[in-house]
């Protein structure tokens, strides 16, 4: 069927869109596209941030392949993201579901959401001092209740526990937001479906598992992608709590990139790391979208 030629009015309407879009496009171009393309360019140079960059082509990417420090940051970043998801999602889902059913649910949700209002630095320092072996409140409490052996554990000073502490701090700070998303998803599930299941003799867990959970899947997979992006980009909690230590056990791509660029003034190499991170996020997002796709439930 031949394509219909747009009428004069339609063409004028389309033209009218351009001036309205232009300011946003300009800002987007200036603050998003321009820096992004500049980063790609810088990644192909050796640049100390002051003197003129020197073209090295793919040299920085070749160096990445031989950099054991970078390899270890990839492992740590994956550990952070997976560990974080394992703590965050069950917790957020639990609070999102349970606070819907409790009498003062809104109040509890407010309490869980409250840490989000703190800046990341404040939250990180709070946790840092909470577990400080010399002056930390946690250690004092453990001593007071006779758990001296537990109190002597340097939670941020041991490679085996430091990452877990950073994950707990990150999750504690943000879980309220994720809980709110899940609570909203639970609210969307029609009450009659849950009532029918209950009348059929389903327990609360069964109602959640077989009725609510399948209907929340679309929201969950979106949140999984968001967490994955956040996890791969993680930076602030780690820089404030451990600075990548102990023994580089919490050094992730974000903190390594920062140190390469700003402490060692190797902006070309830092930009190459940023490009790889960008590519990894893009590929993993597409992959996870594909792998978690299910036929959506209609209700």
């Amino acid at each position, binding site marked *: 069927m031949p394509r219909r030629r747009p009428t004069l009015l339609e*063409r004028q309407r389309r033209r009218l869109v*351009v001036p309205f879009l232009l300011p946003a496009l300009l800002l987007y171009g200036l603050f998003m596209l321009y820096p992004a393309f500049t980063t790609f360019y810088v990644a192909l140079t050796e640049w100390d941030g002051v003197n003129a960059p020197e073209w090295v082509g793919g040299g920085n990417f070749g160096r990445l392949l031989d950099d054991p420090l970078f390899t270890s940051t990839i492992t740590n970043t994956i550990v952070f993201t997976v560990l974080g998801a394992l703590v965050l999602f069950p917790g957020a889902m639990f609070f999102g579901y349970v606070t819907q059913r409790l009498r003062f649910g809104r109040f509890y949700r407010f309490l869980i959401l409250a840490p989000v209002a703190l800046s990341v630095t404040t939250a990180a320092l709070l946790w840092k001092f909470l*577990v*400080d072996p010399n*002056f930390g409140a946690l250690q004092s409490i453990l001593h007071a209740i006779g758990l001296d052996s537990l109190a002597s554990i340097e939670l941020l000073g041991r*490679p085996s526990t430091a990452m877990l502490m950073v994950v707990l701090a990150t999750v504690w700070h943000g879980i309220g937001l994720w809980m709110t998303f899940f609570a909203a998803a639970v609210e969307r599930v029609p009450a009659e479906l849950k009532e029918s299941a209950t009348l059929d003799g389903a327990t609360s867990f069964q109602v959640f598992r077989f009725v609510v959970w399948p209907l929340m899947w679309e929201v969950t997979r979106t949140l999984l992608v968001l967490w994955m992006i956040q996890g791969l980009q993680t930076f602030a909690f780690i820089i404030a709590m451990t600075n990548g230590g102990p023994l580089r056990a919490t050094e992730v791509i974000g903190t390594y990139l920062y140190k390469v660029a*700003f402490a060692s003034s190797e902006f070309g190499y830092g930009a190459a790391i940023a490009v790889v991170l960008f590519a990894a996020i893009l590929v993993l997002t597409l992959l996870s979208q594909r792998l978690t796709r299910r036929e959506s439930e209609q209700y």
Partner: protein
Amino acid sequence: MNRRSILRGTAVATAVMLSLTACITSSDDGDEPETESSGDATGATGEEPAEITGDLEVVSFYPEGSPDHERLTGLADEFESRHPGVTVTLTFGGGQDTPQIEARWRAGDPPEVNYGFMDAAAADGGPWVSGGQVMSLNDVMQEPLEGYDGTWEDAILPGVRPLISVGDEIYGAPESVTTLQFFYNAAIFEEQGIEPPQTFEDLVAAADTLKAAGIAPFTVTGTFLPYLQMYWDYLALRHIGLDGLQQAIAGETELATLPGAAEAAADLQRLVDGGYFLDGFRGVDFTSAQMSFFQGDAAMILMGSWLIGEMAAAIPADFQVGTFPFPTVDGGSGDQEGLFGGTNAQVVAQDSENTDAAVAWLRFIAEPENQNAYVEGTGGISAYTGIAAPEGFEDVTAMLEEGAAFAPSYMGILALSQEVQAAYQQPIAQLFFGEIDGEQMLTQMSDGLLAAAG
């Protein structure tokens, strides 16, 4: 939308973007400074000083609310009263805020007075100096300085001058000197009948006495590697010497084969194996470690001379602190008297808007009255001649007066690549964390430095 419309839209967008870019970059073209000063602003030639006006932005190494920021605020008020046309703004730019200041330099909008931006250890002074972005102070340094005999350069302690110069060119004005040494709790030492250790064996004996008395001999942070590194740096300086260590860091020689290297590693392992460090040190940050010293939980801390000024608000009124240099080692083939240290040099950004006021500020900071107030107020060490050293640092000033140079703090590795830093620091941390022994530390460090050098 037809092709012509798209082209037209693109052309308009491009024109607007180009004009925006022009707006942004035009500030790089050496636009007119705000200052209204003219001629020589130093007032050093005997003529009436030129009037200085305009805004002056000074970077503070410590944040607002800290004792040092308050000190600078007082100085800024005094400076403004002397120069009624000048408004001084203090901007925090220490620690992790340094990249923000660097970003402003790159954008052509640097503060006038800054810390850092000069690496005296590098042959070319580092990228900012070699890039022509740091103003040379050579000419003004040859002029007389109020309160001192001779020129400004003459007023600076001879041992400090190399730290502010690159070749024959002076780029920095020292605000103070920093050194790394032991601080000790004098009351605990007196109680336990311990004298400040002279040799490494004395240090170990003192540590044993303290440990037997239930007092942790040392406190240190396990989360900030440069502070762990100081123990190795000193042992390596005493056993190996500065030149050998610098060559090893540069990958020019194999560290493990250097005379004294094995002994230095063995001594460090001895300190770690002795259990002399405060319980939990692996998990505390440096503030907490320093606090534990002033709370009497540990008797000694190896730290920079800034310790007293930095912790002033937290030091109990009756706390008695003493200092002693890192002890000598028997049979060491290195430098037994060497001292790690540096200077808090301030530089003027070439592209800043009010360089005259900046130079006037640096001269003002150097005045004897302000230097004496700095020493009394912070316990820091002045970089100028004739200024009395704070108690415990008299030897440092005497040494610098004789022209002896410092070994560079942290062996100057903090500006090097992450590969070099990791190769040098991680094995030390692993030894402190009990994961490897001294021999393994030495091998790993040696191999790592060679690999990092390519």
